[in-house]
């Protein structure tokens, strides 16, 4: 009713039944007091006229805005663009050269694009100030990557997902990845070998990282427990020595160990023969013989091991040849 009264001059009496009827036909009788007569033959001159009453649209809110207002209160949250609330002369749209792009009113393109009118710098500053009290100080001792690696060797990687749907749960959020440097695990030679066999291709030689990923359980907590269990189980399993592992022969070795092989015996025998101190050694003595007394023996050991473990290549062959020359006291290759 108040809406109606505002739009009409005071003093004019209207039929209160028709408060608001737009695009409707209203009989405009000269005498409003009279009852309307049913005019079947349309004899009367006064025809029913169609009157379109337009709503008087209030002026834009943007025009009344003071220049020193708090914009965060005008546009508090994410919202589609509305031309009446934004006091900016914006235009958007592609037009041929020489024409003016469509203005901000009745411009669907402006309504489509996401805007950041609710995230102006002062608003962001205010929000940051508001949540500052929930922040805690970063521990002073954890000031570098090395310190973090040292105190927290186990790295747990999970992902949170933002997406639009009636539910906020994303099944991909359950995946948990555990990373740890192999050097951080307390393993001896046998245990390390066994551990690497257990983890298989989850170990990356370049970065020395063991990566365990679990996505078999429906919840993140369960997967986290599972990767922890996997690491624990693999570690303890690596330390156990089974009875049958003692039966491992030289043929079963998966890589070339110079200390166990004929090459070392030949080198020691040759050295003794050359230096004139020939002696008979047992297998155990051969294995534990300290080769640092023989000049260039360390390089020779490396060269032979590389040749067997990495395979024949130009580099390994050349290195092998060079060390043998040094060992035998021959001059360097000149070609």
């Amino acid at each position, binding site marked *: 009713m108040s*809406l109606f009264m505002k739009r009409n001059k005071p003093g004019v009496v209207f039929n209160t039944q028709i408060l*608001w*009827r*737009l*695009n409707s036909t209203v009989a405009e009788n000269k005498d409003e007091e009279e009852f309307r007569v049913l005019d079947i033959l349309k004899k009367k001159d006064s025809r029913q006229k169609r009157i379109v009453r*337009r*709503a008087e*649209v209030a002026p834009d809110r943007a025009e009344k805005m003071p220049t020193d207002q708090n914009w965060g209160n005008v546009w508090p949250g*994410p*919202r*589609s663009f*509305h*031309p009446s609330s934004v006091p900016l002369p914006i235009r958007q*749209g*592609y037009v041929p050269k020489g024409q003016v792009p*469509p203005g901000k*009113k*009745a*411009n*669907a*393109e402006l*309504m*489509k*694009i*996401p805007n950041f009118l609710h995230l102006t710098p002062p608003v962001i500053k205010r929000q940051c100030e508001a949540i500052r009290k929930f922040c805690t100080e970063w521990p002073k001792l954890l000031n570098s990557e090395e310190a973090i690696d040292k105190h927290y060797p186990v790295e747990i990687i999970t992902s949170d997902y*933002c*997406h*639009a*749907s*009636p*539910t*906020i749960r*994303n099944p*991909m959020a359950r995946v948990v990845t555990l990373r740890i440097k192999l050097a951080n695990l307390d393993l001896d030679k046998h245990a390390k070998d066994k551990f690497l066999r257990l983890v298989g291709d989850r170990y990356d030689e370049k970065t020395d990282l063991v990566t365990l990923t679990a996505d078999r359980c429906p919840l993140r907590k369960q997967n986290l427990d599972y990767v922890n269990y996997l690491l624990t189980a693999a570690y303890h399993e690596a330390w156990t020595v089974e009875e049958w592992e003692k039966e491992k022969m030289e043929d079963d070795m998966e890589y070339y160990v110079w200390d166990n092989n004929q090459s070392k015996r030949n080198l020691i025998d040759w050295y003794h023969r050359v230096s004139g101190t020939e002696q008979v050694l047992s297998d155990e003595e051969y294995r534990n013989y300290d080769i640092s007394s023989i000049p260039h023996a360390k390089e020779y050991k490396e060269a032979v091991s590389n040749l067997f473990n990495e395979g024949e290549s130009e580099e390994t062959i050349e290195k092998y040849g060079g060390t043998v020359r040094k060992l035998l006291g021959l001059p360097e290759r000149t070609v």
Partner: protein
Amino acid sequence: MNSSIFKLIQNVSAVSKSSAILSSQFHTSPALCRVVSGKYRITKKRDKPLTYEMANPPHYIAHRKTWNSWNTSSLKDGLRRPETALEDEFIRRFMNGTWHGLVCSEIIIKRQFNHIRVAAIIRRAVSPTKMYFLLGYSEELMANWLHCPVTLELQTVDSFKDVVFKYI
């Protein structure tokens, strides 16, 4: 469709066992690669009104005009693709039917988390009271159907002529 063709082929091969008859049953013609969807023909009098959306054919999406639906389902590895597409279509039809003859633009649907924001340009042809009613009515019903809070963000214009971009 495919299975029926397959059966047909099976039957034919069972009866005739020759490919000559089979090939004679298919009439093929070269495909007419003329794209007509989303494009409007020029009238003789050049008096057909087009909005900005209609004036730019679909291949200008992301160049001259943007998408009408904004959601994460259409991204790579997005969830609920069919559901989102179907819901968007439903929202468009519901809006066009509820605000019958009043919608002057495409229905723009933006989804953020579980919040659906529906934007449109509406003609001021009904009283504000009716508009407020329709607003609440649409929001309430769609929120119930889609299980999400729905917000209508409407802009009003005087008549359809306000959104006309050009005449062809």
